[in-house]
């Protein structure tokens, strides 16, 4: 299993770079993961989505899709794509240290 180093700590990730164990994630790691995903600075809105992803994952054991995010996070689909142009659910999940959300819609 590959590892990655964020905030000087080594974590286990899968082939796509998603955390294998979300408990290994800390907030200090997020800016570094974000930069690797092409997001130079995490704004308050980014954090709102990231924290929402973490809380939903903690509650349900799976991350939300873009549609669910758009309906429940308080951030619209349009804004989500402005914040995370390479795929809001996918990229936010990676930055939030949770597995890639599964779901077709």
């Amino acid at each position, binding site marked *: 299993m590959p590892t990655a180093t964020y905030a000087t700590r080594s974590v286990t990730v899968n082939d796509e770079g998603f955390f294998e164990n979300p408990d290994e994630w800390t907030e200090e790691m997020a800016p570094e993961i974000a930069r690797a995903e092409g997001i130079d600075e995490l704004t308050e809105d980014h954090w709102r989505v990231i924290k929402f992803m973490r809380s939903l994952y903690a509650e349900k054991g799976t991350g939300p899709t*873009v549609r669910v995010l758009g309906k429940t996070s308080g951030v619209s689909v349009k804004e989500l794509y402005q914040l995370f142009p390479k*795929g809001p659910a996918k990229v936010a999940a990676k930055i939030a240290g949770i597995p890639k959300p599964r779901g077709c819609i």
Partner: protein
Amino acid sequence: MGDAIEKVSIIVSKGSLEGIYPALIMANGARAEGIEANLFFTFFGLDAIHKKRHDHIKVATVGNPGLHLATMAGGIPGVSSVMTHYLEHKMEKLDIPSIPEFIEMIADTGAGLYGCKASCDLFELTEDDLIDQVKAIITVGEFYEMAAGGHIIFT
């Protein structure tokens, strides 16, 4: 991942519920993966972006063996509506959006929606007949220009 898909152009040529949803799911799924996506609506697929029709898309109950319904029964007036309501009900339970809502969401993801010029000419449609999210009515040549360097999916 050098061979990852970076762009898709999806052609929607059917006007039935089962003809339109797969294209919408593929377009929305592409955007969710960070893939650039454009949708090109042609022939009866134009109903999906037609202001007056996109909320009344029905399942084909005739000529659709997958439905396992006798063709004669499928042809009885009202059967298509009943089957459509039944499917829509099931989709709602799974939180699958209706076609108008889905298309609006796909436009919000940044995907481009385009009408086919030849079909719009044939059906005497102008941009005024199409929903506001449609960026333009374009020719097949313009479609190919836009699709260059990506994958083309015909549905």
